[in-house]
Each structure stands twice: as structure tokens, then as C-alpha cells.
């Protein structure tokens, strides 16, 4: 058996179309997860009647069932209530709902940690709840939650591979397609692994940069100070 590098190079353009789809799906889902996460966290903390219990149920359901089954449910099960979604739309919906549920927990922790004191400081200046959240709790809490949200984000990107299960032409599915005609398993799956590692590596680098940008403690000091320390340990996201 020989390792066929030429084959990999030959297949790269095809894999890149899959990569593009993976990145597109991930980006759309991450934006939606972020919005769901922030809104859900605020609803939970403010204990909004009716909505808050719904959010709790939603988070528990998503976090305690496999994403792959959720994807199949949306894709094959929902036509029962007359909702037929395309693979791509199903993918974005499934990943956003999944990422959103984890993001709610990420942000809830962060928002809660913005001390009760800052809350009160805001209220005693005469600000209303909207302003307190908009200008104090969310901006500060977002920075606090960002490391855990970036873990969720990384998992969302990795989990987009599950959409191969319903035939969305993303990175993993293009690799499977290519293998189906060439039978060059080793070359293809090793390349696939390496590409995912690169994505994750680039993302963690980006997230570390954003984290640095967000850090108000450092922003104030003029010294430009750049280190990768502490980044490595956060690199690979959480289980999932």
C-alpha cells in the first residue's frame, strides 16, 4: 500500500467546495446561536413568565439528546407537521438550535457573574432594565462569557460534519463522495482530519484575538502586549 499524495492534491479543489459550505453553515449558525444565547440568557435571568420555562425546556431537550437525532428529526420528522426543509436549511436550524442552547448556558453564567452591585449601581442612577442590560450587563457579561462561548462555537463548527448524515455537501460529505469512487480511505480521511485541525486552529487563534480586543482591563493600558499564553489550553473547544 502506498500513500497517494497526488490523489489528495487532485481532490483538493473538490474538498474546498465542501470547506466553503462548512464555513458558510458554521458562520450562519454561529450568528444565530449568539442571538439565541444572549436573548435566552436574559430571559432566564429576568425570569420572564411563560418564556423562561420554555427556554429551560428547550435547553434541556437539546443538551440531553444527540445532535444527529435532532438533525434527523428536523429533516425527516417535521414533514409530519407539514414543514419540509432543505438539507442546508435543516443544517442551519439544527446547528443554531444546538449552539443556541449551549450559548444560553454560557451567557447565563457570564451575565450572572456581573455582580449584583453593578446592577444596582445602574438602577440607582435611574436607568431602566433595558438600559441596565443593554449598556452594563450584556457588554460586561459578554466579555466574561466569551471564552466559554468560543468553546461552543468551536463545537458548532466541528458538529457541522454531522450534516453529512442528511447529505448536505459540506466538507465531510465531499470527502465521503470522493472516497466512494476512489476507495482511497486513508488519504482522504487523514486529509479531512488535518483540514478540521487547521480550521479549529485558525478559529482558536481568531477567538484569542477577539478575546484580547474585548478585554477592557488591557485596553486601557497603552502597552501593546501580545502573548499566546493561555490560548493553547482553550484551543480545542469542549466535548462535542
Amino acid at each position, binding site marked *: *500500500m502506498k500513500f497517494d499524495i497526488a490523489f489528495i492534491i487532485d481532490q483538493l479543489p473538490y474538498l474546498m467546495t465542501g470547506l466553503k459550505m462548512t464555513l458558510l453553515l458554521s458562520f450562519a449558525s454561529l450568528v444565530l446561536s449568539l442571538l439565541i444565547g444572549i436573548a435566552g440568557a436574559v430571559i432566564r435571568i429576568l425570569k420572564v413568565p411563560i418564556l423562561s420555562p420554555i427556554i429551560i425546556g428547550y435547553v*434541556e*431537550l437539546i*443538551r*440531553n*439528546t*444527540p*445532535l*444527529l*437525532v*435532532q438533525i*434527523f*428529526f428536523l429533516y*425527516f*420528522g*417535521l*414533514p*409530519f*407537521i407539514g414543514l419540509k426543509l432543505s438539507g442546508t436549511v435543516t443544517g442551519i436550524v439544527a446547528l443554531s438550535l444546538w449552539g443556541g442552547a449551549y450559548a444560553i448556558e454560557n451567557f447565563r453564567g457570564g451575565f450572572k457573574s456581573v455582580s449584583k452591585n453593578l446592577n444596582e449601581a445602574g438602577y440607582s442612577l435611574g436607568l431602566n432594565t433595558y438600559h441596565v442590560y443593554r449598556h452594563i450587563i450584556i457588554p460586561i457579561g459578554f466579555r466574561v462569557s466569551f471564552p466559554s462561548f468560543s468553546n461552543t462555537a468551536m463545537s458548532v463548527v*466541528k*458538529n457541522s*460534519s*454531522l450534516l*453529512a*448524515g442528511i447529505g448536505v455537501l459540506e466538507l*465531510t460529505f465531499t470527502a*465521503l463522495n470522493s*472516497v466512494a469512487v476512489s476507495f482511497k*480511505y*486513508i488519504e482522504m*480521511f*487523514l486529509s*479531512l*482530519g488535518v483540514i*478540521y*485541525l487547521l480550521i*479549529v*486552529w485558525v478559529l482558536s487563534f481568531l477567538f484569542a484575538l477577539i478575546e484580547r480586543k474585548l478585554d477592557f482591563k488591557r485596553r486601557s493600558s497603552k502597552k501593546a502586549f501580545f502573548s499566546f499564553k493561555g490560548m493553547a*489550553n482553550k*484551543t*480545542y*473547544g*469542549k*466535548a*462535542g
Partner: protein
Amino acid sequence: MNAIIESLPFLLKGFGFTIWLSICCVIVSVLGGVIVGVLRTLENTVIRLASKIFIDVFRGIPTLVVLFLVFFLLPTIGFQIPNFLSALIGLSLWAIANVAEAVRGSIQSIPKTQTEVSYALGLNYVNTMMYVIIPQATKRVLPSIIGILTNLVQSTSLTVLIGNVEFLKSAQITIERITMMGSNNTAVFMLYTLVLAGYFIICYPLSLWSRNLENRLKV
């Protein structure tokens, strides 16, 4: 509806397979994870780096891709193994890496003074780890390990894609059987709901347990 009830024994068999696979994976990954996690904290540069690369690689690659790698790679290099074993190896590689990372974090979160004071008392490395560091670290790491195991149970569903007939697959086969007698959206919807419920029943108590332990840590 009747068709679903008739298929119940078959579905239960799939559910049993899922549980059996989960249990095997849990045992392997907890043992492996603790070992790799401890290795990761050793002073020896080679061991530390090797375990770091292992952890980073298997946490960075999607679980599904790890499964494919094992499933296709092993036979190509001459190991013909049953699907169950590929599933076990693939999922465990992923879980070991995650458990190891959690273990490393918890060991390193124990203040260095604890180690120093043990050495000062005359304990050696093994005794210090066994009686001072690991007991303290265990308490801190348990909630996240249970979290990972919850994820692991969910990930067993991925082995559908390498041909295991576990819970999800048994539902899909049932669906095929029923829809052969005519398209039946109700059955599809009900069976997928059933699969979601089945996983929820296993995972929800685990989540509660993990959260409970975590809350107790905070006090």
C-alpha cells in the same frame, strides 16, 4: 401505530446496544483519560508533549471523522475488526482526549504549595499524587467528566454512520419497514420522537447529577 408496537422488541434491542456500547466506552475512556491526563502533567518533556498532541488532535477533529478514520484505517493496515470494536475505539479516542484535558485542568488547579508541602513532609511523587493531589482533583473534575460522558452517550448515535445497529438505526430500519407499506409521516415523526425520548431518559439524570456535584463544589 400497531406497526410501531410490533417493532418494540427490535427497538429495545437497539436501545440495549446503545447502552452496552456506552458502558464499554465509559469504562475505557475514564481509565484512559485519567492515565493520559496524569501523563500530561509529568515533567518529562517527551511524555508531556506526546500526550498533549494526542489530546489536541482528538479534541480538534470532529468525532465523526475520528470514527471514519478508525473504521476505514484499521482494516487497510490489516486489522479486520467488528463494527462494535471500531465504534468503541473511535468514540473512546475522542472521549479519552476530553477526559484527559479535564483531568489535567483539575490537577493543575490544585495549588502548587500542596505538592511542595507534601514533598517537604517526605512523600514521594506517587504518594503525593495518590493521597494529596488526586483526591482533591477528583472532586473538582467529576462534574466535567460526567458532562463528557453524557456527550459520549449521545455520540454513540454517530456509529449509525459506520453501520452499527444501535438505537437510532433500529428506529430507522423500523421506519423503512413501515414506509414500505406506504408513506407514513406519522410513524416517522413518532419514531424520531421516541429516539429523542430514549436518549433524554439516559442523559437527563446524568446532567442533573453533574450539575448537582458542581453546585455542591461552589458552596
